[in-house]
């Protein structure tokens, strides 16, 4: 138990010590949210609402739409890239120090996943600094709900990251694989644009993408679709269905948690076979 904690603690200490990394973590979300989002919002709302101010879609705000997705993006990338440290530890030798110690491989793997998840939650929360600039209202209760959701999502993504990291020897290789994986997953998750009227094959990919359910959870917490006009909810792509049934928040938690368990088991098994 203390071994897990030590591994976790190391990742958290190193995160707070790395100031450039913390500052840099704002760059991507800033670009997407402010540059891309604000730039697109005019075009988006004129496409959606047309010119008529009476239309229920006149309320459509692309930046607000993107915000949960951007939190998602931050959490996903931080979590999955946190496992880069596993590859770096292999390269710089510290992995040997950990692997030859009496703590079990399972504890090391769990500690790593928890460390990555914690850092991802902290980074996700840091994205809330954008709130005053984009006109979303976030209550304290929402933040309380957001934290466990972020953690769950981060846990699943960290596990995927660890699974990849356990099979690779160089950090370049890891970065390449993760980038190839994360971009299509992001585009097909509904983080960047509403998932409406897609070709059928794409719809299948969307539905098997774990990030779809993760992003939808963030949207459900932040945008509160229950209080929206049905037409607006539809336009924002918030009526996610699976097998033609609307999926509930609890159902999404179940899906993401299930995937998390599968990947953490696979990652731990793969990690355990590693030689120092």
């Amino acid at each position, binding site marked *: 138990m*203390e071994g897990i904690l*030590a591994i976790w603690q*190391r990742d958290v200490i190193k995160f707070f010590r790395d100031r450039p990394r913390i500052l840099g973590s704002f760059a991507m979300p800033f670009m997407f949210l402010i540059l891309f989002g604000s730039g697109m919002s005019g075009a988006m709302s004129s496409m959606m609402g047309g010119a008529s101010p009476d239309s229920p879609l006149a309320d459509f705000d692309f930046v607000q739409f993107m915000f949960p997705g951007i939190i998602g993006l931050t959490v996903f990338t931080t979590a999955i890239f946190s496992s880069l440290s596993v590859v770096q530890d292999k390269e*710089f*030798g*510290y992995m040997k120090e950990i692997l030859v*110690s*009496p703590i*079990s491989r399972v504890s090391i793997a769990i500690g790593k996943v928890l460390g990555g998840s914690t850092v991802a939650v902290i980074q996700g929360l840091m994205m809330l600094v954008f709130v005053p600039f984009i006109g979303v209202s976030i209550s304290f209760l929402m933040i309380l709900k957001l934290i466990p959701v972020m953690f769950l999502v981060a846990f699943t993504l960290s596990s995927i990251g660890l699974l990849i990291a356990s099979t690779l020897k160089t950090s370049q290789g890891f970065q390449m694989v993760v980038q190839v994986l994360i971009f299509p997953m992001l585009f097909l998750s509904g983080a960047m644009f509403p998932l409406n009227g897609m070709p059928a094959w794409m719809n299948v990919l969307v539905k098997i993408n774990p990030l779809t359910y993760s992003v939808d959870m963030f949207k459900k917490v932040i945008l509160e679709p229950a209080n929206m006009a049905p037409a607006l909810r539809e336009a924002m792509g918030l009526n996610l269905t699976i097998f033609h049934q609307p999926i509930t928040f609890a159902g999404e938690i179940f899906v993401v948690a299930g995937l998390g368990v599968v990947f953490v088991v696979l990652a731990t098994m793969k990690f355990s076979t590693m030689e120092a």
Partner: protein
Amino acid sequence: MDTIIEVKGLKKYYKGTEAVKGLDLSVHKGEIFGFLGPNGAGKSTTINMLSTIIKPSEGHAKINGFDNVKEKNKVRASIGLIFQASTLDEKLTANENLKLHCKFYGVKKSLREDRIQEVLEIVDLTDKRYKIVETFSGGMKRRLEIARGLLNYPKVLFLDEPTVGLDPQTRAHLWDYILKLKEKAGITIFLTTHSMEEAEICDRVAIMDHGELIALDTPDQLKSKVGGDIIHVSTEANQAAKALIEERYEAEVTEDGEGLSFRVENGSKLLIDFVKQFDIPIKSVNLRRPTLNDVFLQLAGREIREENVSTKTSGNRNLARRGR
């Protein structure tokens, strides 16, 4: 005598090449056991198998009564390991590196502070405790690493080329501590080295070449097997001198860049006559006791490491410079 390490038929092969070819040995509790051999002899592979880092292809070993394949975690808890390459986290402070190690090895909370202070004092890094390791010099990093290996008071301390890259002062300091540690805590030390000086300090030395054990005994015993004394001579005409020595003393003469050496019984008496009677002008001559290098030379037919001949024996700088 109690055995702490028992090795039986240990083998490791990598894609056709045998790195270690069936090793049998036992290490006694509390001794300093040296593994001497040239680079690539299989020393590190052996230490890695004993410390459970790599799995043996065949055979097994018992460390502190635990099997190195079946009871990995128990073996790990009983040992300390210091690798050739650094395994510190350079982004953390010395203190953080040590604290993490205590946690990994389950050192009791109440003991941690004392242990950390103790090991830092030994390696003279007390004032650097809260500094980031990245800012340390190479020697300081090495010292910190050695301090870290001692934190859990291991039953066996494995040192893979421990003093490579350390200045002589730190090296001596470190050895003092290792010896003290052996006395005080009854710790067993298993080290690999290609340094003759370090091998001389060991209680017993195993000499390894091409993955095989070629000798195992105390340094004194090993040297007495070579026997006699070594005379090293440099003359105006080495070739002629070689023939002359071979004829006159019936000794096997080995040549190096600077001169000739040969082994004789009762060297100190013979040396006077040798100098008096030798017909070829002599540039320099000296007499020394055999070193472990001579043992290796005799057993393997070559030197362990050309540039690392014992500097203990004076007047031997010729030898040391050779081969560079």
